[in-house]
């Protein structure tokens, strides 16, 4: 009985996925599965998270996250699994030492949770910049960079930076500052609404593997634009 119910649910899920596929002006499944540039594939994958949750079991998602054919598929599955497992809500309840150890072992979500829990100590951008400068753990440096990006971006009451400065920082020496600049640039570009999908895809192709954080900034914008289609 239960298995039959699941099968019915599976068929329904497929139908939902099919219906939603018809609705896309751009074929996100095709982009995620076939696009060679990782950032473009990932931008598509980020829009497939909810579809993946509907379409796959946790085991299938875990398998896809580890062994999916492209970065887009792996990212979609990884984020779907993360969401399915309550996302950061499940992590922030762990103590900071545990999270730090997990982050040091390469768990980016644990790093995000560690920074989330510590963020009251990082309200001023210069404090975050200092932490980035002395950070020994790459995942935490990235998470701190994302936090700092919120202060650098539009609407921030303190620490907001102009775009030309962000464009310098995004190709600079510090990983954390590059991430911060990428985060802020994405926000600026989304708010401005000037760039269209082909322009963004071209910008990514030009920067992928050369200026990874600049490509990442465009990836965020592209994910948003794909989602709007």
């Amino acid at each position: 009985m239960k298995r039959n119910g699941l099968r019915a649910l599976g068929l329904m899920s497929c139908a939902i996925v099919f219906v939603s596929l018809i609705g896309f002006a751009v074929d996100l499944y095709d982009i995620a599965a076939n696009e060679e540039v990782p950032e473009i594939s990932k931008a598509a994958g980020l829009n497939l998270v909810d579809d993946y949750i509907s379409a796959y079991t946790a085991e299938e998602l875990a398998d896809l996250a580890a062994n999916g054919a492209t970065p887009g598929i792996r990212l979609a599955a990884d984020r779907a699994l993360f969401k399915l497992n309550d996302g950061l809500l499940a992590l922030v309840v762990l103590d900071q030492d545990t999270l730090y150890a997990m982050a040091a072992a390469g768990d980016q979500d644990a790093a995000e949770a560690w920074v989330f829990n510590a963020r009251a100590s990082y309200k001023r951008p210069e404090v975050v910049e200092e932490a980035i400068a002395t950070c020994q753990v790459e995942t935490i440096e990235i998470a701190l960079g994302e936090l700092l990006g919120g202060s650098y971006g539009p609407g921030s009451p303190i620490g907001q930076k102009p775009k030309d400065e962000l464009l310098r920082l995004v190709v600079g020496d510090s990983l954390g500052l590059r991430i911060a600049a990428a985060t802020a640039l994405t926000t600026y570009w989304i708010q401005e609404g000037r760039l269209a999908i082909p322009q963004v895809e071209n910008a990514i192709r030009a920067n992928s593997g050369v200026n990874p954080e600049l490509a990442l900034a465009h990836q965020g914008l592209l994910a948003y634009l794909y989602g709007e289609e």
Partner: protein
Amino acid sequence: MRKTLILVGLLAACSLAALGQGYDTMPADAHVIPIGVEGTVYEDMELGVRGGTLHIPNIEDPKAWNNHTAKETSTTWFTYRMHRGLMNLDHISGAVVPDFAKSYEISEDGLVITFHLREGINWSDGTPITADDVLFTFNDVITNEDVDCNARPGMILPDGTFPICEKVDDYTVTFTLSTIYRPILNQMTFSLMPKHKLAQYVHKLNPDVPAGTFNETWTLDMDLSELVGNGPWIVTDYQVNVSVTMERNPYYYGYDPAGTQLPYYDKIVSHIVANQDVSMLKFRNGEVDVYAMRPEDIPILLPEGPSKGFQVMVTDLAQYGTTWICPNLDIGLADGTDEEKRELYRNVEFREAIAHLLDKDTMVQNVLNGLGTAQWTGVSVPSPFYAGRDEYGGPTTENDAVWFEYDPALAASKLDALGVVDQDGDGWRDLPSGAPLTIEINANDNTIRIAYCLIIQDDLRAVGLNANFQVVDFNTLVNRLLGATGDIIQLGLTGGDEPNSGKNVYTSCGNLHAYRYSACEDPDEVDLRIDELMDLGANTFDLDEAFDYYKEYQILLAHQLGYIYLCQPTFLYTYYDYVGNAFMASPTSTPGGNNGLLTELCFDKRL
């Protein structure tokens, strides 16, 4: 399984039955809220559509469903949405306006307030609401010593009596006062309670029940279908530690100008979460629709807003309350010491010099991370009586604000003119007699207060005032303030809309007149005028007239520099774009806030 389904179905049917069927047409006495009407504070708002569910985070379970015995906001968050009073705060301006009363009038002598109730309005179970319910609530609940009611102290008039509440007819009640006292109108926001449901639990009306029974009425374990209210929503489901569901009251009397009955949402689900961090994560995940964010949330939420479709409101609207330093103008008075220092502190020119040394911009930037605003008066900025407005309830203009700009050079010249100069060459300014002048600044162990005080200490020192900041424990600090044994104390006060509620602070005999308690025995001209203005503001029912009195009071207070004001954190909020009218969130009301006023005007734009 089948039995469970039947049970669920029956419970749902019970719930529907308890809520009644609603009005066939809009009642003639409906309360039409001018949403979208030009020339009103509602003009920017959109007419909504009915339907949908608003998801709101809440960090505590309610303790009961009885509004009048509630002692905590975790309960009143729900009860304020279930009950409305004769008066209420305007959803947007915060002014006190008629609500269940469609109008009121005040006798020429100012001693009798007559409220005209809306006719043809029902409780949520379909029973008509009449004057008997008003009398029951006031005479048998609020002023009944047998009921542990929090609204009672606010009903006491300046001479210690209660207003006398009487029925004229089914839809008219009067409140007779022993003395003219306009702030009593604020108290007329008391939540009306259904006599037909609750009279049986009041000992004086039903001697068969023991005294105090009402205090144990409408507890969490009650049958929720017995809950009855006149507000926009009624609680219909409660899952401990999980959620509270409120459904639209089909007999609510609020309507929009298009004739759509309010509230727009069918349901509110209040999700009970462990803490504010969980609230924030649930907001990020889209599990709740609104969130009262904190400064530390801003860098995380700002970049996500555009792509996830939510707005991050970082405003310059100050929150309620005041923050200040208080130089003790009675320093040494009790033991006959510090006479010269006391004389100096009592000289307003000296206090002006101190005021010019308060770098509020730096405090806002460095202490409040840019999320604060400078203050100059004792009335909270959101109050409709705040003197930074041109009229009662008008927009903030700051036209009459009294600012002492940060100007160390001016402060130094004022000190020089007072003879407060360095006479012995040790680098510190001395008293005019040549005796050393030392200033001790105290605050309790609070990171924001400490940061303020360190900035103040540095600025005082920079002009040669030998200021030393010391942290003391909170009780010691309060004792020094109340006992007039401190020097300069930094603290804050909560605030509300009605300036008269600050009477205990700002009138010369107030028990918190901490800058100069001796003013009670020896008031100066300014003290006397402030005392007078406080009474004049309370003793008129003309709000514009009261505003003028309170404006003069605030300007005098600002020049008096008894409490010298610092900065207040600003209002922050975040909501998903699809929550219509949530952009009107303000310190007065938010979709998810305690008083629930804005909630009934929000709607789901996706419908």
